[in-house]
């Protein structure tokens, strides 16, 4: 007899605007407080204290324009935020400061979240959608020099890039980029050489979000249609469709795989969060708490797997935090 779905462990209220992006930073040793960063539609980044469940700090750096991406750069002292004011801001939050140290003007008017990859100590690669309609630009941080600009060749009408993921097959090798586009295809780019290695049409509608498991060379993408698409990368660096999963309702805004690669979570337009097993995409749970579209899901990076949390942000201004499948 299956158990009824669990309730959230707790719910964070107080953003007073739709929540578009979430990022945990809980990896620090005690007595570091685990925090959750959330970006909202009113342009404020809230830093939530996960022990007291209250907002610690509120960061306002994007001129009240909606924030659709927050990323931590090695710990909770350095934060990256991307907003609809076409800027990416870099924050220094150490010792109680709340200042913007640097910013990049992307001239991108869409909603494509940037992707970060640490290549060496203090050096990062950042992929972001750039000014041109179909272009993706990769910058090196902190120098902000452009490594390459990836533009689909030929007359391929891929549309805007919708989601990006930078990754390295193994440490030290050439970084690769997976980009999902408006026409439903996913392209694998070689960043160093600046050319496309493989292209796969996964969906009939725009790819809303994707995530990739580099160990198993398998990825998953969600779209505005009813299908989740799982694809794999073979030895020749070619993308192939592995499986598709049909959903009950249309629309997925975000998809993310837990760091231990056991489960994944999807945030749906039907207000529900769905949990699947990653190995065979076995449906595990449907978490029905929110009353409006769920915009984002994120897993925490706790060092102890028993404390792992899942957070979901929604248009109903709430962030629900769940603890599911923490026993391994």
């Amino acid at each position, binding site marked *: 007899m*299956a158990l009824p779905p669990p309730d959230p462990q707790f719910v964070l209220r107080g953003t007073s605007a739709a929540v578009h992006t979430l990022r945990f930073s809980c990896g620090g040793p005690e007595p570091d407080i685990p925090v959750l960063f959330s970006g909202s539609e009113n342009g404020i980044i809230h830093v939530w204290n996960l022990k007291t469940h209250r907002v610690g700090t509120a960061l306002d750096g994007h001129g009240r324009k909606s924030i659709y991406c927050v990323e931590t750069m090695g710990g909770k002292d350095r934060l990256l935020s991307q907003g609809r004011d076409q800027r990416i801001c870099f924050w220094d939050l150490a010792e109680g400061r709340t200042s913007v140290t640097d910013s990049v003007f992307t001239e991108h008017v869409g909603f494509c979240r940037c992707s970060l990859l640490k290549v060496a100590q203090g050096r990062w690669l950042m992929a972001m959608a750039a000014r041109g309609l179909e272009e993706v630009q990769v910058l090196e941080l902190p120098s902000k020099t452009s490594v390459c600009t990836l533009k689909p060749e030929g007359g391929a009408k891929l549309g805007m890039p919708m989601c990006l993921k930078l990754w390295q097959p193994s440490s030290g090798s050439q970084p690769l980029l997976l980009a999902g586009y408006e026409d439903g295809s996913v392209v694998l780019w070689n960043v160093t050489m600046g050319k496309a290695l493989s292209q796969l049409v996964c969906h009939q509608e725009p790819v809303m979000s994707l995530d990739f498991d580099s160990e198993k060379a398998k990825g998953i993408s969600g779209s505005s249609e009813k299908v989740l698409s799982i694809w794999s990368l073979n030895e020749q660096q070619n993308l192939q469709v592995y499986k598709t999963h049909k959903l009950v309702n249309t629309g997925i805004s975000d998809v993310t795989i837990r760091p231990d690669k*056991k489960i994944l979570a999807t945030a749906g337009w039907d207000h529900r969060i769905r949990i699947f*097993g990653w190995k065979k995409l076995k449906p595990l749970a449907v978490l029905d708490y929110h009353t409006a579209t769920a915009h984002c899901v994120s897993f925490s990076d706790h060092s102890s797997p028993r404390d792992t949390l899942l957070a979901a942000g929604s248009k109903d201004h709430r962030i629900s935090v769940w603890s599911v499948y923490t026993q391994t």
Partner: protein
Amino acid sequence: VCFIPGGLDCSISFVSHVLGKVCIRGRQKEILGIVVPRLTELTRSDCIWQRICWRLLECVPDRWMEAVVLGFVQRAPGADALSRLLGNLVVKNKKAQFVVTQKVLLLQYGHTTEVLQNLLGYLALDSARRALLLRVLQELLEAWGSSSAVKHSPPEQQLYISKAILICLSHLKEPEIQSCRQELLTSMMEGVKCHLDSSLPQIRRLGMVVAESISSRVNTEGPLLKFEYEDDDETRELKSLLVQTPPLCVVPSPTDDKGDKADAALPLVPEGNQNSQAAAPVMADEESDAELDSDDDLVPYDMSEDKELKTKAPVYIRDCIEVLTGSEDVDKWEAAVKALESLVRRNPAATREVSVELAKILLHLEEKSCIEGFVELRQRAQVAVLTTDPIPVSKYLTSQFYALNYSLRQRMDILDVLVLAAQELSCPKFHGKNKHSGAQKPPVHLLPGSDSSKDWRRIVDERIKSKTRRFAVGQCHVEKASGPNEFSSVAGHFFFPLIQQFDRPLTTFDLLGEDHLVLGRLVHTLAVLMYLAVNTVVVTAMGKALLEFVWTLRFHTDSYVRQGLLSCISSLLLSVPAELLLADMAEELLEAQSWLADVVEKDPDGDCRRLALQNLLLMENLKKKLEAVPS
């Protein structure tokens, strides 16, 4: 008939004379039944016999030529056989030419498709005769395309001509078609216009099929003309005429071209399929999972609550109105449209408060998103509103029928809704049997009622039941409750406003002019309303008004309208009680009787003649009934 070939110079003109005389006397069947098969056999391989046959026919005197040629054409087993028998008779003999190219094709229309095939195939087989084939095609197209022909000639003749056109097209080769391309296109355009103008669906379909076929032969590259119509047996038969099956004998026929083209089209299709399959992603479905399935550790939760998200339908009628008029939310709008009919029926009191407003909204409601069955949903909602509050809503609808700036489709929708509502109102709600179940929409073709036979049986049964004394009550049958006929109070409101203004033209709507399709629908609607008003108080007044209406329109050129007028007379005769007919309308009915007799004899449309005959029979029955009643 046995000749000795071998150098003897025989004259067979005597035989021709005999043949001709026999044929003209009406013995065509007997003599040709023997002569034609024999000659077909003999001429199969023997050239001398062929020439004898040709000479035989050439010598038939002109005044008997028609009978003989017609007989041969009807009896020849195939186009090639006809070619062997007749030779180039049509080219050499003027009368034969007239019979074959004009009389059979344009003046008569009773021959079968096979005869047409033989005749036109015969013309196509020899180069000397092909010029005739082209001329025939042009004349056929002229006849097909003339608007007076479309309006006044019987549908059977139009079908015949269409078949002939298609067969001609199938025989013509590319260069021949290209040479007369321009004329073909011009005549096709004119013809299509006349056909589409007609109110009879059969004529419209004929026009569409022929135009499509012409366009496909003339324009081999570029977009093809394609109409939307429902395929039925007739259209399938017509389209099959375009493709000739090659004849069994060795004679090379020009029809092989068409067959080749059809074959060439087929291999292209499977290729297309393969290409699309190659593009589809490779499914790696045989990947064996050698790893231990540690997913089994993860126990799923109960997911039975996970269902499709549905927008809640509004529960109050005023909510529905708000959503339908103002809301931009498409999901809510869809839910409102689907829920409206049941809401209206469940809350009659609430509906009556807003009935006219609802009717107005529904009349102007356009499809905002793609719902299945939108037209039906809207119509059912309108019928529900009309039956719940008949008088104000019918007043509104009938006034809008004659108002400016409505589309023809909307006006016809009004008529449909009135009929469906009248049907619903006039049927007592608790009756199991629905007598009018056949009459879903106009036109309603009524046969003289066989209902009367069922009625008397029921009456007799009831009388027996009431007269027998029962000592023990067995299982008592629940008597089906009957309700009052709700249509009687409102019939006049439905009927009279529709009939009042038909002769006043508006700038956008002219019933007596161009919009004869709507006039036809109006007339059929009035017929149904008349029929449904049986046993109501107002039926006599309706009858009089209807008779006057029919009288003014009785010579209308559109056969659909005439069919409607005849249905009106039928309804009239069935609904108005006989005594009242005699009392109030005797003179008009006598005049109508002579008109009906005229229609039976002279009307070109088969349906009109049949309806008129039924009406005359109904009148006869009435007369007999009245005479049988002892006065």
